[in-house]
């Protein structure tokens, strides 16, 4: 199978994630965009492992690591969003500017 298909799919996921991250202001949507970018990274890791045929399965192992870190990030991120919502009644990330100036 040509290697460009999964790689372009990953590139698409990543740039969609970039767009979401920059354009949306809903905190949970920003987290989702980051998840899309992480998914793109895992696709790339697995694809490069498939190209290189590494005996240590580095790409797959790293994909698993990225998944675990992504889950941890969601847990902590959502906890922070909950806290902001509880104190400021808003999930717009522009409203979380208490320490800005």
């Amino acid at each position, binding site marked *: *199978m040509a290697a460009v298909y999964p790689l372009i*799919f990953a590139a*698409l996921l990543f740039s*969609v994630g970039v767009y979401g*991250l*920059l354009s949306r202001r809903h905190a*949970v949507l920003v987290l989702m965009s980051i998840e899309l970018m992480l998914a793109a990274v895992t696709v790339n890791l697995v*694809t490069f492992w498939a190209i290189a045929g590494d005996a240590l399965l580095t790409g797959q192992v790293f994909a698993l*690591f990225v998944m675990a870190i992504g889950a941890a990030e969601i847990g902590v991120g*959502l906890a922070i969003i909950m806290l902001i919502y509880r104190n400021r009644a808003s999930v717009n990330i522009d409203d979380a500017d208490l320490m800005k100036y």
Partner: protein
Amino acid sequence: MSVPEVVMLATGVVGGAAALLVVTSRNVVHSALYLVVALLAVAGVFLVLGAEFVAWAQVLVYVGAVVVLLLFGLMLTRAPIGPTGQGNELGKAMPLAVALAVFAGLVALIVTSYGGEVIALEHVPPAALGEVLYVAWALPFMTLGFLLTLALIGAVVIARREEGEGPLPEPDPDEPEAAEASPPDSSSWPQRQPEPTPDEREVSA
């Protein structure tokens, strides 16, 4: 075109479309549901590439846990049916330009570097992955477990309700004590205006 290529193209198109809908949908809950489709498509790509265990881990961790957590968070932070007003403005030129530039750059890079590359698909049984993961990768794996424990504790500590902190209490006719328990320092924060109760509306009308 071979069978794996057709499957890969189909999952890629579905996943890409779902990802686009995630960031453009007007309703955050719809975004989260499209994210499910996009992440399932990623799992499909893993399957085609022969990484079976990673694919099922993707389903278990992301679709089973992360998206459920996200939806849970959305519903706790008020996610009404219909377009969400808050923080949902679209149509900014700059993010679009940046995303398109990133995509164009990546595609150019991929095509020049890996244009002719062909993957010899091989299926890796989970047992093989396990043997590598618990022997060669044992130390990084333990570090990861440590990190996850820290994240768990961190999330609990952050989300815990502390003394004198909490939601801006809405006056509840059933529990008059709840209104008195309002935190003294909450006056500097933007106050959420409580909806008038039906009785109050009738009195004012």
